[in-house]
């Protein structure tokens, strides 16, 4: 099993997601809002709360990986690698995996993603529902997923246009690229606050007459993951 941040994702007690944009909000005296937004790369931010039930002896690999990642090394994580989490960001549309695999990007300017090579389906069939994850390119190519803002039907045209959750932050050309949909999408995350760990007595394990464990790990903080958009 992959370790490091993927282990944290798989084992966390709770997960919170923050995709809020950068904006200055002021309220006038008559309470009218005035908003100034900055178009940023709008990275994914996830906060994972870990239980303090990890035995030290079982977590040596995890400890070493996290210490090696430190606060500045990104790692790919996905919700599909753990069967118990595969319901998360599950694709809600009606296309089959092979139909999705044939779709290519026609253009992606601003937050308007135009897809072509669509399957032959009735015009009322749903291709994407709101909050469906979409990753551009092959696996590992552009692990910066977007979500669909609204329901997209097949329609009758050669292409469909999605409004995505954030503008196209990928620097290179994506025209002709394939797409990945749903929970196989990858997130390229690092943990700027990488928590430290404390050993708490407990979880005593004996093999023969040798004690092999007598400590649980207690984490100093939540894992606040931040998308590594520096290489987008």
């Amino acid at each position, binding site marked *: 099993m992959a370790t490091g941040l993927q282990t944290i994702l798989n084992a966390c007690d709770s997960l919170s997601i923050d995709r809020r944009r950068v904006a200055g909000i002021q309220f006038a005296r008559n309470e*009218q*809002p*005035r*908003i*100034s*937004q*900055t*178009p*940023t*790369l*709008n990275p994914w931010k996830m906060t994972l709360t870990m239980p303090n039930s990890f035995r030290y002896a079982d977590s040596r690999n995890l400890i070493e990986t996290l210490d090696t990642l430190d606060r500045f090394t990104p790692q790919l994580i996905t919700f599909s690698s753990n069967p118990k989490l595969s319901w998360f960001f599950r694709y809600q549309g009606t296309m089959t995996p092979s139909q999705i695999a044939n779709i290519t990007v026609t253009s992606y*300017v*601003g*937050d*308007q993603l135009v897809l072509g090579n669509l399957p032959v389906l009735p015009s009322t069939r749903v291709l994407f529902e709101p909050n469906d994850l979409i990753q551009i390119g092959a696996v590992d190519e552009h692990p910066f997923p977007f979500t669909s803002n609204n329901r997209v039907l097949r329609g009758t045209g050669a292409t469909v246009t999605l*409004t995505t959750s*954030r*503008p*196209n*932050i990928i*620097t290179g050309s994506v025209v002709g690229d394939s797409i990945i949909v749903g929970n196989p999408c990858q997130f390229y995350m690092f943990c700027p606050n990488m928590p430290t760990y404390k050993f708490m007595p407990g979880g005593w394990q004996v093999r023969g007459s040798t004690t092999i464990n007598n400590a649980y790990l207690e984490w100093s903080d939540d894992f606040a993951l931040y998308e590594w958009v*520096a290489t987008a």
Partner: protein
Amino acid sequence: MDNIPEVADSPPRINTAEFIKLTVFNEYGNVANTNVYTFSSAYRAEVIDGVTYLPMGGLLAVGVQNRDLRVTSSDTTIALSGISGNNIPLVLGTKIRGSEMEIIRGFYDDNYELANTYPRFTGIITNYAILNDREDIDDNFTVSVSASSYRTIFENRVAGRYTNQESWQTYSPGDNSMNNVYSIAGRTFDFGKPVVASGGGGTPRNPFEGPVRRN
């Protein structure tokens, strides 16, 4: 004055980014020998007037720019990441002081397409600073560049000329009417009156010496 439709009639929401252009003059008297650095707070590279502004990611902050109804002089500051790109060589390895800095404000539409841009500040870089801020295990480098608006430059400009030989002959090389100014500089003249005290190297008159005899 520009009419900016994006902010006309008090819209409830605007979507803006700052675009910065530094023109470093490499050689005195040769305005063609320049290096131009452009960067922005935008999420992608944008082309404005044929110049590409990179989403450098190293632009940390743009300082306050005064906005008054009448023209006023003001300074501003931009902060750059010292661990990004060539920002430290930019201030240490070039003639950054005296360079021209332009700040442009770009407005995006609802689909994150750059719609319009407007100049916001134009001035001359007057100073820079490199800050290394280490607290515990957090170590950050910041490069700050200060710029004065052109109005400040004009305020500090020397208008007219001095009444000395050098300044006078800058404008009129053959005019020697100020050649003797150096020899009388700092001396007191009582024009139209008898001399009661001499300026320059003279000794001040002692008031206990009695009245001056007038012939």
